[in-house]
């Protein structure tokens, strides 16, 4: 025992922040340079391909002129879309706010029209002709995401008016484990963190989030989570995602965090058994501590019944000021103002490596350290907040 203590003393935990390389001028110049480089490469490739086709030395059956022109057509189409988006201001956040709002209005208007149902029945019967049948290996469906994105954009820009701080702490490339506080009775915070990165960050589009087991027992809900990029929370899945250099959002508090009483709001619960630290150590990924402010107020939990929930297979039945009282309308969250704060990444390597994942004492200590860091970020941001609804 004494020996172990000694060993533990020797390992003083140091947080090693990632050097903020791109502080003065953000990464945009590099990004533009990179983009130009890529365009050059595409052009070169194009010329080479055409050359090869002329000489017919590809070894494979040669591409026909038709194939090539259709490829160029597709390219032109895409460039047209991007340039349209830039000109209409859709790529900038101010423009996107109005776009998100008008798009949701259009959707609602469409739902009220007869055409929508005719199209729906048509699609149901004949299928969509140009449907992309591919999902990624975890069941994320890009076409489905395109379909539901307006709703999430509406929630993000217009309903909760999410403001984001510390976006520079998200690495431009490579893996990362976003660790955040969990709250809100229903798990909206994962999707909003994802939307924050996808909407605001210049280069990251691949945020995945881990979802609690119980969701997958439910009809519709589990499938929905899979299609929008959620992955069942288990070490195998998370390791696979990180090994492919994704950003992965985890909520180590789990059910205890999301289902805490309103009186305990913004008080972080126990961080599980430190599984996320083991994950970070094994895959050598930086941990990005993240604070979500505002999600506690969307469904203030007054009471929860665990006994009634047990036969349904869910962890609890929530009682909020609106939930059983207003029926399904109670499922509409309250429009609080949200802030998502990304903290400085914590890098455990090279001081701690995959071997240290078996040292439970160290894992618990590191886990507690991350928890305290997020708690500090939460309290600090709360101090700055004047109003729940207006920020």
């Amino acid at each position: 025992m004494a020996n172990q203590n000694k060993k533990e003393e020797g390992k003083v935990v140091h947080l090693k922040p990632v050097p903020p390389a791109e502080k003065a001028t953000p990464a945009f110049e590099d990004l533009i340079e990179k983009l130009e480089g890529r365009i050059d490469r595409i052009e070169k490739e194009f010329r080479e391909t055409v050359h090869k086709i002329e000489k017919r030395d590809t070894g494979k059956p040669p591409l026909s002129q038709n194939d090539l022109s259709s490829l160029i057509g597709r390219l032109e189409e895409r460039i047209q879309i991007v340039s349209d988006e830039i000109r209409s201001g859709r790529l900038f956040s101010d423009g996107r706010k109005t776009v998100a709002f008008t798009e949701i209005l259009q959707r609602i208007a469409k739902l009220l029209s007869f055409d929508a149902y005719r199209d729906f029945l048509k699609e149901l019967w004949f299928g969509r002709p140009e449907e992309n049948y591919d999902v990624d290996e975890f069941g994320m469906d890009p076409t489905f995401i395109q379909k539901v994105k307006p709703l999430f954009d509406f929630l993000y820009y217009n309903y909760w008016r999410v403001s984001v701080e510390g976006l520079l702490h998200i690495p431009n490339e490579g893996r990362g484990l976003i660790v955040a506080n969990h709250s809100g009775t229903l798990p909206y915070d994962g999707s909003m963190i994802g939307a924050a990165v996808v909407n605001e960050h210049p280069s990251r589009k691949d945020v995945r989030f881990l979802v609690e087991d119980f969701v997958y027992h439910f009809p519709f809900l589990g499938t929905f989570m899979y299609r929008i990029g959620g992955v069942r929370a288990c070490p195998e899945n998370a390791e696979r995602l990180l090994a492919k250099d994704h950003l992965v959002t985890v909520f180590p508090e789990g059910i205890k965090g999301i289902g805490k009483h309103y009186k305990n709001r913004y008080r972080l619960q126990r961080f599980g058994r430190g599984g996320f630290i083991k994950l970070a150590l094994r895959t050598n990924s930086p941990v990005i501590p993240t604070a979500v402010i505002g999600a506690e107020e969307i469904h203030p939990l007054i009471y929860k019944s665990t006994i009634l929930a047990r036969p349904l297979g869910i962890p609890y039945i929530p009682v909020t000021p609106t939930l059983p009282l207003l029926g399904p309308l109670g499922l509409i969250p309250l429009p609080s103002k949200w802030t998502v704060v990304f903290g400085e990444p914590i890098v455990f390597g090279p001081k701690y490596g995959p071997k240290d994942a078996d040292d439970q004492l160290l894992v618990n200590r590191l886990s507690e350290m991350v928890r305290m860091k997020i708690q500090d970020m939460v309290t600090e941001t709360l101090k700055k907040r004047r109003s729940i609804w207006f920020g």
Partner: protein
Amino acid sequence: MRYPRTLMSRKKSNNVPAIALTGTAGFVGSSLLRELEKDPKYSRIIAIDYRKPPFETVKTKFYRMDLTETLADSKLLEIFEKENVQTVVHAAFPVSPPHDLSWAHELVSVGTMYVMDACAARKIKKLIIASTTEVYGAHATNPNFLSEDHPMRGGFKSRFLRDKIEVEVQAQKFAKKHPETVVTILRPCTTLGPNVRNYKTNFLQSPVIITVMGFDPLFQFVHEEDVIRAFKMAIDRDFPGVFNIVGDGVLPLSKVLKLAGKVTIPVPAPVLYPVVQLLWYGNVVPAPPSRLDFLKYLSVADGAKAKKVMNFVPRHSTKETLLSFIGAQRLREINLLEAT
């Protein structure tokens, strides 16, 4: 005569080591037999089943026997010794869930015991066992990709799958007890292709398909050619251990059915289970209600180990496999292709 030389050698001596296949009337057994017949490397093949192989054979000696009869182990040992068998491929399993569960238990679990007893007594060099990824079971708590060392949890509801798991447990015990024998267990996932017939092809053939409402799990297919190639690789070279044999990529059930052009009827799970139970008793549906879990939850296996250790790279992805199956199906419907 296509193989005069090998025929001569067969007549001369029994000292050339032979390969024994069980279940040569089934899909894996018969396809593998065809492959081995073509391969000049193997001069003597022993086929063991209670039905004859479905085609003419040249190098193969057929023994008619039933693995469910008593003292099958002694009979097997007799064959093994007489024919100098060094490699055994055990594939005498029903592919589709059977109605007669006690017969299935006799064949799957007890039959395997007999085969292993004979193998142990003969001290054969190699034992290859055909399993399935269904032994993992479909659960909401499965990881997205099941690796070979994941616990086999398929037997909670299904006695048949419990027997299949029993086979693997026996094989792993056998491998531990007889380290001189190379024991390979191959777990192919749902096998599709132009020729294969099993309960899943029956499921995909019916024009109207009942699904579980609100559930759309990811599916994974492997092409029949790839499965047979994997077995052939395991015969040609030594790969001790368990391997998932799967195609690359996944497809959600809804898109599988759309690609196949089926009309789907989603039914809520609480209604569906008793209905399927009744239909199963009436022999209307191809599978008992315990298999409905595979329409509800995820059961996708990871083929990384086979790729790394066996260097087995599937030639057909999940989608290509499905399309080849659907294509053959359509040709069959308009009578351009012979029915199997």
